[in-house]
């Protein structure tokens, strides 16, 4: 069974798909405040939504528990909201739509926008955070004032653990994700993102 599911996801990843991911806060029919991730699939990509929630057109996913996210002590969220560019960088590694959907369907994560309810670290909806978040998407999205969404993976304790990717939108308002890396991880060739000027050899 697991094999079939993996095979299905594998097949999905090799199809060029277009989906739209959005995120909002609502008061549900049960009268409960909650964050919701909405994934809309066009007719051609209905299999993605069907995989995610069983519906061909649209999926709704209420936000999972996020331990201590509504507070100011979580230093990881603080790093995201206050020093995003300082701590993280976007790569050009684009996620396949199928992979994005399978991630959104199966993994433990939260989505963060500059208007997130978990922003306890800067003024809600501040332009500074908006610009900082937008800088992770290509120029087009920045010009269109699109609202990028960060995918933050949760750990076993449901605490923010890793900034996995940013969801940007293209000209057709279709969503895609780009991998994000941390700049703070230990020294390694691929991590050398900083500009280093070698002063060891008298400036040579």
């Amino acid at each position, binding site marked *: 069974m697991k094999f079939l599911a993996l095979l299905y996801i594998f097949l999905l990843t090799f199809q060029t798909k277009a989906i739209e991911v959005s995120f909002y806060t609502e008061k549900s029919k049960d009268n409960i405040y909650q964050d919701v991730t909405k994934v809309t699939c066009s007719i051609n990509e209905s299999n993605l939504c069907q995989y995610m929630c069983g519906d061909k057109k649209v999926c709704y996913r209420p936000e999972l528990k996020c331990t201590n996210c509504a507070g100011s*002590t979580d230093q990881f969220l603080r790093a995201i909201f206050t020093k995003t560019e300082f701590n993280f960088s976007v790569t050009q590694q684009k996620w396949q739509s199928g992979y994005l959907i399978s991630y959104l369907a199966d993994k433990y994560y939260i989505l963060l926008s500059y208007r997130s309810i978990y922003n306890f670290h800067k003024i*809600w909806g501040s332009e500074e955070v908006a610009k900082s978040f937008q800088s992770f998407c290509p120029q087009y999205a920045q010009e269109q004032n699109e609202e990028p969404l960060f995918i933050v993976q949760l750990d076993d*304790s449901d605490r923010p653990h890793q900034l996995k990717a940013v969801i940007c939108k293209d000209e057709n308002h279709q969503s895609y994700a780009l991998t994000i890396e941390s700049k703070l*991880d230990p020294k390694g060739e691929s991590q050398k993102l900083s*500009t280093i000027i070698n002063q060891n050899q008298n400036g040579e």
Partner: protein
Amino acid sequence: MVLLFLFNILISGFVQAEPLKLNDLHLTNRAQCAIDSQSPSQSAFLILDGYNPGRLAYNVAKSMGQDSDLLAQEAMLRYRVSVAQLQKYIIQQLLQKKLPLLPYSLDKKNLPKYSQIAENCKNEVYCPELSSYLTKVWFASQKEDRLLSLKAIDDFSEKNFISGRFDYGCYLLKKFSPLQSHLYGPTIDRKGLSAIGKALSNTEENLVECSSEDRSIDTRYASFQIDILGDTKSWNQYGFDFWNSIKIYTSWAWRNAPEIKNFTQEFQSIFKNLDLEESLLYVSNGCKSLSKPECNSDNLTKNSIREFAKTQVQTDEFDQEIPDGPQKQLLEKGARAVNNDFLSLMDYDKASNWVENFKKNFTNTQWIYRNRVFNAQQNLSLIASQFTPEEMIAAVATLTQRVQEYPSLKKEITYLCTEWQLSANQEFDFIYSDIEQIQKMDVMNQQSMPTGLSVQEQIEFFKKMSRPLGELCRELDSNKFFPTQDENFNYNGLQDWAKEMLKKTLATEAAPEAPTVMSEGQFLTVGEHEIPICVNAVDCSRRVIKSAIDLLYVSSYASGFLSKGHVQSSEVFNPYNELVSCHVYDPWFQKSRTRKRFVADLMNAALFGWNNIPAYVDVDFVPDRVTSFQQLVDQSVIKFTPEAQKGHMVYSLLADLGPLAGAPCAVQISPNADKAFNFYAFGGIAINACTIKAQHDVSFKRAKNPVVNDPKDRSFCGGCVINFVGVPSAASRVQAAEHFNPLKLGVYIFRAFYRFFKGMRDNVNIPRTYDLNLNQIKETYSFYGDIPRQCVKPLLKGETCKANYCESIAAIYAEKNSQWTVKRISVKKVKSKENPNLLKATFTDEECRNDHEIFFNCDEKNHTYEFFETKDYIRNKKCVSQKNGEAT
């Protein structure tokens, strides 16, 4: 004009239908408070700050385009109510023996699985293992066959449940009132009792049921009072486990228990994400404790937040670059006054205002701690992501060869090496071992972020860098690289922490010196916009050291400010919690000292009192004096072992010249300068003089550990006094010719008893306690309309007052309607045809010599009365002063 005062009281004025469930007020002096600190409390305040739910709702409203202020108010109210409901639910479950107790001591014999998991998880309830364990326990406890279900989880038995009958009360405080009188003084007078009686008659002015949805009470800051009612002796078995359980179950249930949805209602989905522990704090209500007092960094730092509960923070400890640490603060402040409202509760009109001041002071400092951890982590991780420690120092080494080209570099390298000497030189070890210790501290390791270096790795990087840096600095020193004293080098460019360590002999206010920019540009930048991290390699190395210092700063009080995992508690009202557990104060010392001195005085009387030997050996006892603490990391917590100058007997040899020379004089020679000259024990006309020869040594174990050795002092005193002891002693010369001297013996025995009773009357250091039964005070107050003077003693003993009703009523009436204080009162029947029940009360005021009279009717059986005096009549009565006989 006749004032008609008809009264019919027995049970009146008490508006609440539910009886008030509060514990007796346990008034204690310093010594008793210190003793109490070792026992579990039956009363606690739960301090709540609604900022997080308020801010969360504000963000939600903004996201949805709603009225953010309105929703924030709603959320804060719902939060206050939900927390109260959850508290009540958990307490009920524990007291009704449904939920088992979670032991505070992780002893493998008791619940081995729990102990192991809690230890692995460092008591963090959101740790998956512990969370899963608590989930199983929670659901098993709701089953009919709960013990059987619980046994399948761990080694649960009947002894893991509270036994005995306990009830509880939970209240939301509107203001601190006489119902917390035990926090305001070690004893209480009639006015104090009367204030308690009044507060009990108008409870709605002071408190409401804790889950009240009263919107007129501040929704952001709140203080709940939780009282557990029941037998104190039984409670002592369970108390510490109970509060430990409350803290852990509260943290877990808030996020996981299905019942919480009924409390949090429309906020149920988002409230479970709240950082609950940031906004709740348990505080013991009185001298007893919520967690077992121990002399370790956890306990000391948690209790040090007491400073923030004061109106004005009275310490600069938290402003220092390298704090002394709570153990040094403990020694510095030492024994101090307690139960005197030192946290100024009564200065605030509302309990919420006191909580607000406390939380603001606390949060401001908490932010400084968080910022330092954050900045250290960012700097060290960024630097370490690009350089190995060896590469970094190799880069510094090349810069040492470029000082001709950049003269300012020489200064910077000098600063770097000075900072290395202070922070990382293991030979002198000013603070190096303290920095090393950070790696072993759980509370610090919990501060690691998911990205970048862990705290342990950060310290490791610092240590690895310090080795080659030390070699470089030594080499530079041997090459005479550093400026000599003759060069008059200015050290103003040192970092603030280094200046502080060098005892602030430098100008700390000097503007920071900018690092030298090399022609090649910045040494390390980050991001597309090239945000500079370090200007040059020396700058980078100094940042590494500064980051380690920041971590050291944070580690001193981390348990108090950054602790995670479950709701914390602090014994803010009782500094003796740590003073006793760290052996700085011994509550039994004064009692035992007085007894020992009494025995010594009697022995003196037996040996020298009856004969003509002019000797007297005066003994006294000095308590242990803690001079410093040894630090040892045990189970990831720093344990402090006190190093003390042992308590000892001090003695002096006295020559009582009275019986020899006939003069009321004595001379004393003592090997201890702190031995007071008090031979005659009483005051009187006296001439005393002493000379002291003192010698104090200071030795060093390490650079940071000066040890003051026992002083070697001598004193020689002489004095004459005319008083009850000196004169008879001198007069006993008459019997000097004979062998037996009864007058001298009498003086010696009398003095022994006098000193004993005087010592035992010490109201501060001999344990004293009063248990005030609130029901009795309420009944007395309701019965008489006030607290009669005759009722003070029985009420202080916790006994029922059975004062004469008519006498008491007359005294209270007189005091209420005049400025006088009734000292004595007597009531007699007056013969009157018109009024056969007429009574006359004659009372004496404390200040007046003359008596005053009031006429009234009173029925002792039916408790009715009627006064015939006007208020003016009593007030205008003349008072003849007792001192000079003048009428006023």
